[in-house]
């Protein structure tokens, strides 16, 4: 293992080289604050703020304990963390509890004073903007979810003991503030024949994602604000793309470049890294949108209801197709469905909270929710999904390649002793 001083030395060296680049200023530096701990094998990547006076920067109550959990694969800074969906109030995810996936890149420590966004390719006028300049444009503030393409995939739902944080905790919803990408593309002009954009980040691996120009023009946001504060480093500080309803990687973090062209770039996050396989072995190009989805967060896996009686059943619904129009709840294992109440506000491409008054008589019961979006797409049950794919339920547990865009209805079983278990495979 390298000694701490060795690591500091070469970090300094790499920062100097990066600082000498023609444009932009990314300094991936190691967090020194971890050096005092016994675990010297990883660092955050960015420089975390030191604790401040709580009068200057407020803190939550000591009785509030919601926290993100690591995906069981590991505990390094690069590993995935899931959002505690059952402990979120309303529809907005606090930035500190937003799910996070970084695909192995260190979170870059970017000085906004030196960060740039370049737009080029099939445009009339390539342009490069500073953060300060981007903030002179009229801004929009919109509520949108960002969801990992592999949220609620079969491995996440494998265990009967899985909590909703484990199964569905890779979606989060924020109020994003920034410039409409269409406003910036009016400044550059768009050449005839352009059909795609590629967005690229400034982090170490500079992840890229190809997005249809039509979607970019429709509602994509070049965002610098999240829930009233600057976008957090792990969410792309100082700038990220928000592509409403599209799978996570389209929402390019640490955004520094957008190029227009007449075909997709087929980057690793386009394919092969983000294509799912059909059972016959064919891959699917570009699945773009996250499907219409919902999950009951209370009651949900791991919770305990010590006495029968009245409960306000609640959960979240969302869709890459736009607004949620309807959520139905079944309390009898899917035999009958009743409309849940949709609680305002209801935004397009946003988490929408639903509510269903429920009287539990103490018997074993299976609870589930089913969402319908503004286009009439209905969230499928697992058995319906099986028919579409021509497979048995066993297929999802047997296949060694995780299935992204997996949005079947999530049934929770409440046993007679009031404990709640994942029951999706009991069909």
């Amino acid at each position: 293992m390298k000694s701490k001083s060795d690591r500091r030395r070469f970090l300094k060296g790499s920062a100097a080289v990066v600082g000498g680049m023609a444009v932009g200023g990314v300094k991936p530096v190691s967090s020194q604050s971890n050096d005092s701990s016994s675990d010297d094998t990883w660092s955050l990547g960015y420089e975390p703020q030191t604790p401040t006076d709580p009068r200057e920067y407020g803190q939550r109550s000591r009785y509030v304990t919601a926290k993100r959990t690591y995906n069981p694969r590991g505990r390094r800074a690069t590993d995935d963390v899931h959002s505690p969906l059952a402990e979120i109030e309303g529809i907005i995810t606090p930035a500190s509890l937003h799910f996070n996936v970084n695909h192995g890149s260190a979170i870059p420590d970017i000085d906004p004073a030196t960060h740039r966004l370049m737009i080029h390719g099939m445009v009339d006028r390539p342009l490069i903007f500073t953060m300060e300049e981007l903030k002179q444009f009229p801004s929009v503030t919109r509520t949108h979810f960002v969801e990992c393409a592999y949220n609620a995939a079969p491995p996440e739902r494998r265990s009967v003991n899985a909590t909703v944080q484990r199964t569905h905790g890779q979606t989060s919803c924020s109020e994003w503030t920034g410039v409409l990408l269409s406003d910036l593309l009016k400044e550059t002009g768009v050449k005839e024949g352009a059909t795609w954009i590629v967005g690229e980040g400034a982090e170490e691996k500079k992840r890229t994602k190809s997005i249809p120009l039509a979607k970019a023009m429709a509602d994509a946001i070049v965002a610098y604000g999240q829930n009233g504060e600057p976008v957090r480093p792990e969410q792309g500080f100082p700038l990220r793309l928000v592509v409403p309803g599209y799978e996570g990687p389209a929402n390019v973090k640490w955004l520094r470049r957008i190029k227009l062209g007449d075909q997709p770039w087929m980057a690793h996050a386009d394919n092969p890294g983000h294509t799912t396989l059909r059972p016959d072995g064919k891959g699917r190009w570009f699945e773009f949108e996250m499907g219409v989805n919902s999950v009951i967060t209370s009651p949900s896996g791991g919770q305990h209801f010590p006495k029968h009686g009245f409960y306000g059943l609640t959960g979240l619904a969302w869709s890459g197709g736009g607004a949620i129009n309807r959520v139905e709840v079944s309390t009898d294992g899917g035999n009958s469905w009743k409309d849940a109440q949709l609680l305002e506000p209801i935004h397009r491409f946003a988490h929408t909270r639903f509510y269903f008054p429920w009287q539990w008589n103490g018997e074993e019961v299976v609870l589930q929710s089913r969402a319908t979006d503004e286009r009439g797409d209905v969230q499928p049950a697992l058995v319906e999904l099986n028919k579409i794919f021509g497979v048995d339920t066993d297929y999802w547990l047997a296949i060694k390649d995780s299935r992204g865009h997996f949005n079947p209805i999530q049934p929770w079983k409440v046993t007679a002793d009031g404990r709640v278990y994942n029951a999706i495979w009991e069909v």
Partner: protein
Amino acid sequence: MLFGKFSFVLLFALVIGDGVRAQSRTFDELGRTPTAEEIQDWDIAIGPAGEELPPGSGTAKVGATIYGQKCVACHGQNLEGSPNGKPLVGGQGTLGTLNPKKTIGAYWPFATQIWDFINRAMPPNMYNVPVPPEQRHTADEVYALTAFILYRNDIIKEGDIIDANTLPKIKMPNRNGFVPVELEDALDYRGRGCRAGMCP
């Protein structure tokens, strides 16, 4: 008939020209024109046509030496992979099974993707510590490593020279292993039958 079509195109061009293309700027004091060097430095996403590939070249033979120095520790003596690096060979015939291997030779549809990925992501940081600049690959090294991987997957011969001209022309074994068949058709998301987040 021809004339009619032509006038439609002309009208369309006029409308588009007025509405979108020839539009003047609203905020012309914001932003500046990047220099050619600035664009070139950042223009690193390599599409299937390979237009963005930089000058340079390499062969599998040169690549084997570089592989032995900079890649073998994680990807293995025979490119078989390890817990720290994915396998770079094998996987043929597995895509339709319950243990599919999305390897370069069996799955990746474009040879340019190999160049792009090595260039932007290899070698990776370990434990979030950035890779020292001297360990990064030069363009020639990326061409050589790409050639080496293609050779070890039986896609090119050992002496083939891989450069900006030859790389995009290589036909990968699984190029036709995707739906829709034509990449252009991927744009029409609803038209190709995708519903409720699932594509056929």
